[in-house]
């Protein structure tokens, strides 16, 4: 006797029971049933990388209003919409980003350029200028007159307000700490040996009595306003133009340096930076952290804005347009979705922080598809083609050729060093790590 059974599919289990029902899906995960699974996934990854580049339209809007170059940008810490900008002609504008409207517009807030802006509490704003004045504005009442004026002795370069207190610090030829209620500085902070011009000053966001400054004598300095003196000083190879404290890591500070690089320092170990960020081809003029501290933005003299991932010192996202000139100030908005840049052409530009992000409502399916595409690209980024598409960015010709020239020069320098070492007695000269070259001395 032979047992016979012949395969038959029951249509009722494979067809929708009622019209309108979804068709039942059956799966078989045997790899033999899925030929070319890997090759097809690679194709999908390639398409995802291409789609990502197709949708990469980062420019959102430009905020006009300044007659001259935008020197400084500041964000209100507890708002996602309010941003202030000051320009070389002394103009001061408080923008409302979602409405693209101006909450305050003072055409001549200062004589000469506005060199620093910071927000105080209760919709108040401090600005300083090269006219040796710090002015306190109230942008709710819409008055063109400052609420208060604090006269100083030298032209100011930067200002920063302590979070949740009345204190603020200014940078001129020395660092001064002021109280909003007093018209004279309450303390002067300086190292006895320094004859510098301090270019930027920032309060630490966590330990709020700590103050950091960078100066034109290539120094990076740390102060404590409780002791009222400079605690540490680091002299570097080149001067820094701006600094920013990390919002999440209290000991981490970011410096935008004149030597085209950005440096993060862990202030527990000031002998070397914890990371170097190389991509700009001219001096970096400004930097700002995203509120989570996982990213930061920098703007450079090379007319580009770059967005970096913390810890990845190369291949940042790069934004540029034909009409954007030297970027003097950059800002991450407090919702981390946008990046602002103020440049020499007098415009404040709004960019998306993720170039291919879709603005507006994203459905759940769309979100899932976007996430799947993202993980595909991440998984296949080692593939030559996928990686190339995901990595490559178009650069303006001058920037591209400058970068190329820079690589050539650095390469030549390195090879020369290599050859020199090869032809000297063994062990005579050892290669120095790039990070060890940055700091000249550390004083405390």
């Amino acid at each position, binding site marked *: 006797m*032979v047992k016979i*059974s*012949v395969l038959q599919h029951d249509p009722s289990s494979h067809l929708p029971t009622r019209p309108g029902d979804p068709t039942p899906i059956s799966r078989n995960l045997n790899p033999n*049933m*899925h030929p070319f699974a890997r*090759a097809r996934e*690679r194709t999908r990854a390639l398409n995802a990388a291409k789609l990502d580049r197709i949708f990469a339209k980062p420019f959102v809007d430009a905020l006009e209003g300044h007659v001259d170059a935008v020197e400084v940008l500041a964000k209100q810490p507890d708002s996602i919409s309010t941003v202030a900008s000051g320009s070389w002609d002394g103009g001061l504008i408080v923008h409302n980003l979602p409405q693209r409207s101006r909450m305050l517009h003072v055409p001549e807030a200062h004589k000469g350029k506005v060199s620093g802006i910071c927000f105080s509490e209760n919709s108040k704003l401090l600005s300083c200028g090269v006219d040796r004045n710090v002015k306190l504005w109230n942008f709710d009442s819409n008055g063109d007159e400052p609420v208060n004026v604090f006269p100083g002795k030298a032209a100011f370069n930067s200002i920063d307000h302590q979070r949740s207190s009345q204190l603020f610090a200014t940078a001129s030829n020395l660092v001064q700490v002021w109280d909003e209620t007093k018209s004279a500085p309450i303390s002067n902070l300086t190292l006895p040996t320094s004859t510098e011009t301090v270019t930027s000053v920032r309060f630490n966001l966590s330990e709020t009595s*700590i103050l950091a400054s960078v100066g034109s004598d290539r120094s990076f300095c740390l102060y404590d306003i409780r002791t009222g003196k400079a605690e540490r000083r680091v002299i570097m190879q080149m001067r820094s133009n701006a600094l920013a404290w990390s919002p999440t890591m*209290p000991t981490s500070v970011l410096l935008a340096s004149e030597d085209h690089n950005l440096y993060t320092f862990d202030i527990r170990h000031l002998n070397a930076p914890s990371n170097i960020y190389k991509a700009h081809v001219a001096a970096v003029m400004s930097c700002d952290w995203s509120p989570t501290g996982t990213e930061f933005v920098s703007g450079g003299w090379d007319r580009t804005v770059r967005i970096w991932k913390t810890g990845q010192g190369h291949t940042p996202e790069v934004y540029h347009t034909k009409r954007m000139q030297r970027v003097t100030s950059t800002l991450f908005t407090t919702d981390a979705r946008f990046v602002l840049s103020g440049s020499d052409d007098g415009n404040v530009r709004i960019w998306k922080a993720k170039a291919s992000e879709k603005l507006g409502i994203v459905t759940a399916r769309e979100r899932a598809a976007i996430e799947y595409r993202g993980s595909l690209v991440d998984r296949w980024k080692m593939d030559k083609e996928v990686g190339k598409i995901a990595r490559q960015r178009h650069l303006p010709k001058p920037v591209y050729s400058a970068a190329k020239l820079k690589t050539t020069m650095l390469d030549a320098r390195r090879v020369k060093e290599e050859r020199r070492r090869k032809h000297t007695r063994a062990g005579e000269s050892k290669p120095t790590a790039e990070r060890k070259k940055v700091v000249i001395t550390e004083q405390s």
Partner: protein
Amino acid sequence: MESLIAKGNAIQRLSNEKQKKFPKAGPSKTSQNDHTFNSVVKHTSLPRSFQNIKSLPDGAVPKHKHIANKKLRTELVRNSEHIATSKALLEDADMLLVEDSGKMEVEGEMERTWRVGQNEIQGGAGQEAARGRKEWKLEGGPYRSRYTRNGRHLAIVGKMGHAATFDWQTGTLHTELQLQETCRDITFLHDQSHFAVAQKKYVFIYDRDGVELHCLKAHIEPTRLEFLPYHWLLASVGNPGYLKYQDTSTGQLVASHRTKLGSCTSMTQNLHNAVIHLGHTNGLVTLWTPNLAHPAVQLLAHLGPVSSLSVDPSDGGRYMATAGKDGTIKVWDCRNWKGCLREWVVRGTGEPEVEWSQRGYLGVTSGGAVNVYSKPTITQPHHASSIHQPPLYLTHPIPHRPLTSLRFCPFQDILTIGHNAGLSSILVPGTGEPNFDSMEADPFEGKKARREREVRSLLDKIQPDMITLDPESIGNLAPQSKLTTATSSELNPAALGSAKSDVTYARLPRYERLKVSGKADLTEEVESDEGEDDNEEGGDNGEKKQKDKEAREKRKMRGKGKSLKRYLRKQRKNVIDPAAVAIRNKLEKQKEERRIAKMQEIGRMEKTKPSALDRFKRTEKD
């Protein structure tokens, strides 16, 4: 300042403390004291893929302890954990396979499955399955046929030009054409909406309703057609002996290979790597990819012409069967072409045809019958009596010679035979894959699903130049760079300066640079190295020592150029040149003198006093 530093340090300390407190954030711990968790867990269940799988064996997840970078290490560990969990979960995927395959089993010792006739099988089959047994009596014959990938639709073409496509289950006819010229082959394109016919002069593409869409004039006198579904390529070979690939999504002729082997009448594809197999009249079988102008593999399979080929789809395309006009059937292992695994001679005359089914049953036509063989015996090497045929699984006589085509229906236990008087479908239990995957091919798909699949498969189209013999090469590590040749053999920093390595340190790949500077992470290589060492220790100990010595001397010599030694080094060691020999002797002598002088210095050897007879001592010529 100190407070800030303390704050910075505090981050670390806090995390350490936390670790001590909650060594593992597992559900076992939380379930005891977490009220929220307990209240929620009664009413919810996590999907299995999110559940923490406890039963992972210890060795399953490598710890990557040799990686110093903590971030990288955690990422690697997380990756390997993910892989291990997916593997563990994949074992449960059997639950998805709800349907059982068909089968024929004998109970008695003396019974044989091949004695069972079609009537008996039809009687034993279910009502739905029994409908698969069909006879189509058609004129204009011998017929060839082709199923779609989901097995739902059948395309047939007769030699005299009768072509038709239809849904064989419901019996709806899509189109019926009388082309009134010789037609040699037919194939569906990506689905039932298009099909291509190899006609007298050219290949023609028709849509579902039989409207002629394209005439592919590049394909001249085609004899066989194949469609590569994942690459959207229509391959044809014909009497001129050219293999042509046409991209059916863009319309471009992708490649045209001259086989130089004359007219070709047998062709098949390997479903798993999209390689085209051609059988030629001189007994050669050649394997082709679009990006190679010459065959990737060429083997002499038969002494006469090759009449048919087929590649086993069940085992990742591992086995190939060929049939020759000399009446032999051979089964080959595609990984190793050294001789066939099994060969046998079929009875009867004519051109035998072969075809593998989805589950690895081999159908063979011989003379006036179809034989089906089952898997383990046909692929086992069989030396004792090499031309005996393997045990039969099923046989079915067909009186209408010649039998020209064999097709197994995907996802059904059906074999369709094309012959002179039309086509017959027989039931062969066990040949069809019982569980289809709706994402790949679904016999029950509707209009919308078909459209969706068309778009999706177009988006996932693989480029023709990615076809290789080994489909797993995509996404694997690239072969080692040529730059590493200078230093990869030795980890010796001194070797870098030697004349052997002409690649500068700066131009070396990163890993090589690390190796040279002694910072490379060698822990990964340790295991393989150890194995080698064990082997070497017996015989090559002396050689190793000598190598060390050489390296040491090389280091010592750095920066000191001794002209004599340099001269010697430049001479080949195995050339006996009187000058070199003399210099070598001189150096030996000097060395010996130095050694003696040194020994005397430290007092381990007495100074030999010069004797009067020294003057007669022979001095060697310098």
